[in-house]
């Protein structure tokens, strides 16, 4: 049973359990088609990208509630600049990524420099960013319908970058957003396991005071964690806008909860100091498959919510027993 002691193994068992449900309730074989899996991967990618940033923050024993709102804000910015102002994507993408990172850094500053609780600081950012998204967009979806002064609409074409991001490659077998997620996961993985800052994140999450007294640059490390979380949220926001072909100020509503669920189901501890990107990937697959299975079987909304709640609790309980 030594195998079971590894958190990855536990997370995989939870995933396997969900897959077994899928094989059993395969919706007349729909579950066995690759397109089903491809679409699941596409759908979960945005959440999983958020999960990558969330993993960093949670490993430092923090939390970031603002990522959902940041998706909305960056989606609106991306659409506004690229569709309505018609700027080049080479200009727009860096600006939007910068905006997301800046929001993350603001939360990070509140938390590390001014010692606000992560929950409160990012809650404030969550509310603020949603407000900013609505203010910038005027409460309307920023789409290819451009409002003219006389109240009528001019319809423009969606920029090429949108089609590029929402496309699929490898003979239509994998979505670009999934590849973007894999890149994000790779970046987070390298940070956590190969870079000094990643080690510092684990140290801070494990014992912040001991880390500080060991000379770990606590403020800088937290800034990096929250800044990257904001950056990943901006990446997710761009993906979201590209897939919706518009910037919805309401986009990403309550996505932060799914992102947290993905991280926690994987087995990263909310108490900090333990976890990894591998776990988050498994967590994302677990949640993704769960939603997909419920969806292809056309399970009613009420049952879905109840089932999802039960499975989240069960998976986390299962993770917990490993300590004994």
């Amino acid at each position, binding site marked *: 049973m030594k195998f079971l002691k590894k958190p990855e193994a536990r997370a995989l068992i939870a995933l396997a359990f969900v897959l077994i449900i899928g094989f059993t309730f395969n919706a007349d074989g729909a579950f066995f088609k690759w397109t089903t899996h491809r679409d699941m991967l596409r*759908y979960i990618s945005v959440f999983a990208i958020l999960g990558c940033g969330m993993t960093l923050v949670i490993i430092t024993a923090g939390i970031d509630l603002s990522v959902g709102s940041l998706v909305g804000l960056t989606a609106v910015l991306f659409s506004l600049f690229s569709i309505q102002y018609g700027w080049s994507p080479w200009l727009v993408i860096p600006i939007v990524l910068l905006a997301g990172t800046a929001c993350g850094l603001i939360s990070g500053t509140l938390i590390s420099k001014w010692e606000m609780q992560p929950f409160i600081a990012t809650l404030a950012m969550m509310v603020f960013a949603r407000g900013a998204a609505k203010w910038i967009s005027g409460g309307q979806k920023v789409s290819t319908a451009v409002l003219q002064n006389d109240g009528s609409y001019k319809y423009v074409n969606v920029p090429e970058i949108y089609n590029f991001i929402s496309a699929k490659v490898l003979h239509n077998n994998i979505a670009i957003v999934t590849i973007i997620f894999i890149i994000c996961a790779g970046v987070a993985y390298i940070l956590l396991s190969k870079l000094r800052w990643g080690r510092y994140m684990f140290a801070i999450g494990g014992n912040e005071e001991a880390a500080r007294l060991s000379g770990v640059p606590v403020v800088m490390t937290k800034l990096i964690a929250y800044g990257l979380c904001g950056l990943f949220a901006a990446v997710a926001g761009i993906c979201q806008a590209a897939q*919706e072909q518009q910037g919805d100020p309401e986009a990403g509503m309550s996505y932060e909860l799914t992102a947290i669920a993905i991280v926690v189901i994987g087995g990263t501890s909310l108490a900090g100091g333990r976890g990894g990107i591998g776990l988050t990937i498994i967590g994302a697959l677990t949640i993704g498959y769960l939603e997909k299975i419920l969806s292809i079987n056309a399970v009613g909304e009420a049952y879905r919510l109840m089932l999802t709640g039960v499975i989240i609790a069960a998976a986390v309980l299962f993770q917990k027993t490993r300590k004994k």
Partner: protein
Amino acid sequence: MKTKLFLLIAASLIILACGKKESKITTAQKVKPTVKQKIIGMSQCNLGEPWRVQMNEDIKLAAAKHPELKVIYKDAQNDSLKQVAQIEEFISAGVDAIIVSPKEAAPLTPVIKTAFEKGIPVVVLDRRVNGDKYTCFIGADNKKIGKAAGEWIVKKLGGNGNIVELKGLMTSTPGQDRHSGFRAGIKGSNLKIIFEADMKWLEPQARKEMESALARFKNIDLVYAHNDPGAHGAYLAAKAAGREKEMIFVGIDGLPQEGRMYVKQGILAASFEYPTGGKEAVDTVVDIFGGKKPEKEITLKSHVFTKDNVDKGGKWL
């Protein structure tokens, strides 16, 4: 500590300044109305939804045709009590008419009654209040629209076909009405609902559910979504699967920058308008100012927008 305090104060000042602007205008208008000018107070329950933003937009456009009208807009941000307070403000500021799109019936009934009894004409938009102490109610009927959509679909498909229904939030009245109306509309035909799912009015959700439907069913003829973004999400899913040509998509709401645009682009076969009533509300108020007594209840007619008629402003149902 000092920098913290400074930033805090600076931030609150900025926010205050932003908030102040609105009320400053109102006081200015209160103080010196020109002799001929008539002031209308408009209280919107929530500007978070594009449809309600459109309602305000429609009012603005209609009012622009009457230079003597001045409309003061208030957003209650989904808070009934806030909306009550706003109407109280209108009453004490002595506006000439009130247009209100209430959040809920019960909390707003008394204050609307007060305004009505003081002799201020009150036009209630979209959602009802209890009793009859208001001047006029203007609204559309989701059941009727759903039924019209159903009948249109029966005709379009010739009474045969497989249909996917992507429902709005089934705990909300519009969701329930657009569902039951639709079912009534297709009654007696051979249309089959092969897949139905709750997409909570959200486009990404609709796309996900549609992907599942596509994975399960080889033959889908039509997707009926309870709102246009839902229909658009379904279209994106079908397009991603390379199957968007096999089926047609129908949505509801018909907003210019959503449904009508999708129809124009050939994404949706039809979008059924859920009218905001903004124009009709202004027209009614103008009638009242002109001494006419309006009908107690005006049920708005809807347009259906299809590729051939969208540029001509749709066709009345």
